[in-house]
């Protein structure tokens, strides 16, 4: 299958093919084409991570209480937004889990938006990347629930409100919990993939106004999908760490 490659992927494949194959063999995998072990989504993921880390590094050095700069304003805005949502959804303990929410939000937002730059590809257009984010959210909310409630009390959540119905509720609850990372994955992947395909389809028809309108819609959907991913993660964490008063 021919995949179109971003210029960055071509650079990686030209110079870093050896380390790429070495990394794959660490996990006992071999590339389907050993001369080109780097895929678009892998290279773009690393680029997004490095860009976010570099931005936060620059931000940290410029933090100031008296004269905040523009970058600090932007990140304060994001932090306040996520903290308010976390307080609303999770309640008292929202602040304990703010790290995962901010990480997921900033990474997914940056990953979605980097596709808008002409020669870059969003890593979230690949179902592997979105599955990674969804599995992270899934593991996190289960571990948070286990840590807070202990094994037995967390399993009791799966039995539903009436103990007599437990044999019926347990498979239903397990299936619905397993459907959560699946739906997170498919929602983010399909939104990003479809947005780009629609823009490309209209670009094939005409290069006047219409593709730009669809690209604008794609950028709006990118922002919205990042927010929805984090919102749903908050709701799942809230369900897992809920106390029954």
């Amino acid at each position, binding site marked *: 299958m021919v995949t179109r490659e971003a210029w960055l992927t071509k650079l990686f494949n030209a110079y870093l093919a050896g380390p790429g194959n070495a990394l794959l063999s660490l996990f006992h995998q071999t590339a389907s084409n050993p001369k080109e072990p780097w895929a678009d989504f892998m290279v773009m993921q690393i680029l997004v991570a490095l860009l976010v880390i570099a931005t936060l590094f620059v931000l940290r050095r410029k933090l100031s209480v008296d004269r905040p700069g523009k970058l600090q304003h932007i990140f304060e805005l994001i932090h306040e937004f996520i903290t308010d949502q976390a307080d609303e959804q999770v309640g008292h303990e929202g602040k304990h889990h703010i790290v995962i929410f901010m990480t997921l939000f900033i990474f997914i937002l940056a990953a979605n938006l980097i596709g808008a730059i002409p020669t870059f590809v969003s890593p979230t257009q690949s179902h592997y990347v979105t599955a990674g984010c969804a599995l992270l959210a899934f593991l996190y909310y289960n571990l948070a629930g286990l840590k807070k409630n202990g094994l037995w009390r967390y399993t009791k959540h799966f039995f539903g409100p009436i103990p007599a119905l437990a044999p019926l509720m347990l498979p239903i609850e397990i299936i619905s919990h397993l459907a959560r990372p699946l*739906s997170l994955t*498919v*929602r983010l*992947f*399909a*939104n990003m993939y*479809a947005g780009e395909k629609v823009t490309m389809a209209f670009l094939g028809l005409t290069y006047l106004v219409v593709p730009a309108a669809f690209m604008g819609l794609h950028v709006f959907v990118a922002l*919205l*999908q990042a927010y*929805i991913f984090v919102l749903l993660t908050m709701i799942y964490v809230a369900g897992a760490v809920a106390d029954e008063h």
Partner: protein
Amino acid sequence: MKKKLAFLSSALMLSALPMFAADTTAAASSGGTSWLGPASAVGMAIASGLCALGMGKAVAGAAEGMARNPGATAAVRFALILGLVLIESLALYTFAVIIMFNH
């Protein structure tokens, strides 16, 4: 009105009869045409249409709620956006299945 409806529906169903003739000749000549393309298109169209109906109800309810109680605008808008995103993801599951079948 009922007689007109009965006549129209039976005319519609009878007009589908030529389909049986077309089926066998196409299969015999080219060794089996693939219905994957048209089937994906029709499936996606049905999914999008039904999701659009659901979204219409959601937006109508939200607009009416915001008109009746402007103080609750923020809460209604939040519920609206959340509902729209969840409904849209159902249409996108169909899209994902189509991609799975076509690769």
